[in-house]
């Protein structure tokens, strides 16, 4: 490129690029420790190159790419619809949301911003599935986070509820983890015929807040846990914004930035729910925010079920234009980016098509990838145990980071 300026020489930095909590020590006394790619607390195949001064973390560099499966490149060689199963496998803990983000983006190309491609009924089923998925994600996160902290049983408490919720999703779409449920113009299957399905879900949901209460009784009153989480992995609001952190981590720093609320998609505009925030931007705040989000998800699903049962929602679960084999012949043209509120943050899909059967480019804006960057800022100057807690509080999934 002609005349590319080296901006670092010319333009002074306009802000302090992250509070450097570096401990001043003689470099020769530092120990370099490689955590991962196989380590019980790196949630997969993340590698952390940690510089340690005794127990204190001087610096940490996350090294990723051990699960880079090049889904985005594979998308360029398959029909538009065939990429949906691969989105499942990116963030495999909340696959419904990945489906949703990709499908929304392609629907922008197919129908444009104003045209209604998806029927009201399908939108309700989508929100139902997505919020159940959010519940499952937060439950699993809580369990593994507590495992990182050394508490063994909360995982089993969380898995107990998660299995029930996954059972409902399994009845909906036939899969436990990788749902492959959303389609352009709707969802693959309608709600199950079983007349007891929705009542059973309602019973489960009615119980759920008391279960969340149970977790809080178990964990919130535990002095050891609270002592370990409070003040751990602190981030100022400036740092959070500057590093592009979204989702519960952003809301834990006091910004009620929830895309379901501020840039509503699907039917979230019509639903009544709160955006929980916390003022203390540390691991404890993130835990509290996610607990509150579980309760809000329950509220949303309850409203959606009410609307499905009481109103006679229009339309089919899948737009007939995209039903059957027609979905394989989808040809999309143009460029679009859509964002949704994923349990981990902003999830988006940037899609480009040239009117052929295959896309030119599918880029997934992965929340875990963006959020993981901030780990060094959180961990510097703290202990090894805090590094583990900070990492856990981000809620990363390596499939999402590496894609």
């Amino acid at each position: 490129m002609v005349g590319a300026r080296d901006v670092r020489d010319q333009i002074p930095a306009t802000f302090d690029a992250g509070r450097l909590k570096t401990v001043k020590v003689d470099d020769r006394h530092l120990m370099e420790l490689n955590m991962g790619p196989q380590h019980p607390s790196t949630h997969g195949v993340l590698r952390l190159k940690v510089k340690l001064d005794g127990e204190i973390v001087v610096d940490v560099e996350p090294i990723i790419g051990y699960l880079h499966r090049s889904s985005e490149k594979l998308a360029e060689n398959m029909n538009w619809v065939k990429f949906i199963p691969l989105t499942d496998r990116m963030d495999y803990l909340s696959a419904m949301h990945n489906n949703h983000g990709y499908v929304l983006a392609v629907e922008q190309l197919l129908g444009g911003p104003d045209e209604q491609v998806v029927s009201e009924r399908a939108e309700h089923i989508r929100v139902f599935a997505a919020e159940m998925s959010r519940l499952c994600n937060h439950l699993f996160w809580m369990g593994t986070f507590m495992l990182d902290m050394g508490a063994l049983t909360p995982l089993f408490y969380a898995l107990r509820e998660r299995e029930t919720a996954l059972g409902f999703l399994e009845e909906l779409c036939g899969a436990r983890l990788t749902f492959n449920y959303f389609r352009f113009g709707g969802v693959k299957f309608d709600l199950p015929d079983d007349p007891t399905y929705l009542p059973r879900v309602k019973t489960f949901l009615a119980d759920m807040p008391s279960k969340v209460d149970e977790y809080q009784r178990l964990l919130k009153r535990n002095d050891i846990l609270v002592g370990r989480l409070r003040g751990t992995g602190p981030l100022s609001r400036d740092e959070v914004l500057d590093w592009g952190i979204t989702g519960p981590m952003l809301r834990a720093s006091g910004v009620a930035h929830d895309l379901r609320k501020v840039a509503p998609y699907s039917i979230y505009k019509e639903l009544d729910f709160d955006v929980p925030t916390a003022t203390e931007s540390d691991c404890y705040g993130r835990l509290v925010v996610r607990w509150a989000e579980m309760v809000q998800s329950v509220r949303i699903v309850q409203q959606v079920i009410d609307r499905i049962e009481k109103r006679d929602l229009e339309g089919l679960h899948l737009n007939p234009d995209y039903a059957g084999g027609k979905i394989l012949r989808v040809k999309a043209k143009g460029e679009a980016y859509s964002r949704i509120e994923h349990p981990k943050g902003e999830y988006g899909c940037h899609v480009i098509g040239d009117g052929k059967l295959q896309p030119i480019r599918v880029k997934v804006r992965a929340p875990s990838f963006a959020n993981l960057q901030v780990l060094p800022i959180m961990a510097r100057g703290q202990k090894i145990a805090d590094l583990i807690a900070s990492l856990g509080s981000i809620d990363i999934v390596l499939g999402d980071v590496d894609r």
Partner: protein
Amino acid sequence: MSPGEAAHAEAEAPAYDPADPSHLEAPRIPIVVEEQREGLVLTVLSKLVNWGRSNSVWPFTFGLACCAIEMITSQAPAFDISRFGSEVFRASPRQCDLMIVPGTVTKKMAPRIKTLYDQMPDPKYVIAMGACATNGGPYQDSYFVVKGVDKIIPVDVYIPGCPPRPEALLDGVQKLQQKIRDQNAILELGF
């Protein structure tokens, strides 16, 4: 024909009888390592060691991708791998018997998996969990995915599925236990 081949031949091709439900069960092919020449003591010792090894298969805390979630879920109350004595997930490769490879093996990760496998003490077993670990699965065409973990390390049991349900993993572990029971532990010990 060596006795080993004979054993294989006997296990093969039972006559098909629709009334007999036994054809629904997979034939149990004994794995004959070498001609059994040991006396009573060694045979009993071998059985004893096999009993210990097969009932105490400690897996490795090693998650790669989606299947790792199902691996963790297999400890959940609903599935409970602990019934078979396999819930002791050890984080150090030195203390494990079984490496479950749960997920996609990439080219960056492949050497590390080889290292981890080498770090495990004998006897060690590998379960390839899911389509990716078996042959690359949905990522066969990817430029960065190794098409199956058996390109790097030997695999004992393959579990199909994408991802396999926890029940399938339990079945795989039991298949592995059966395989261990059929081994000749004395030869494995190197006597």
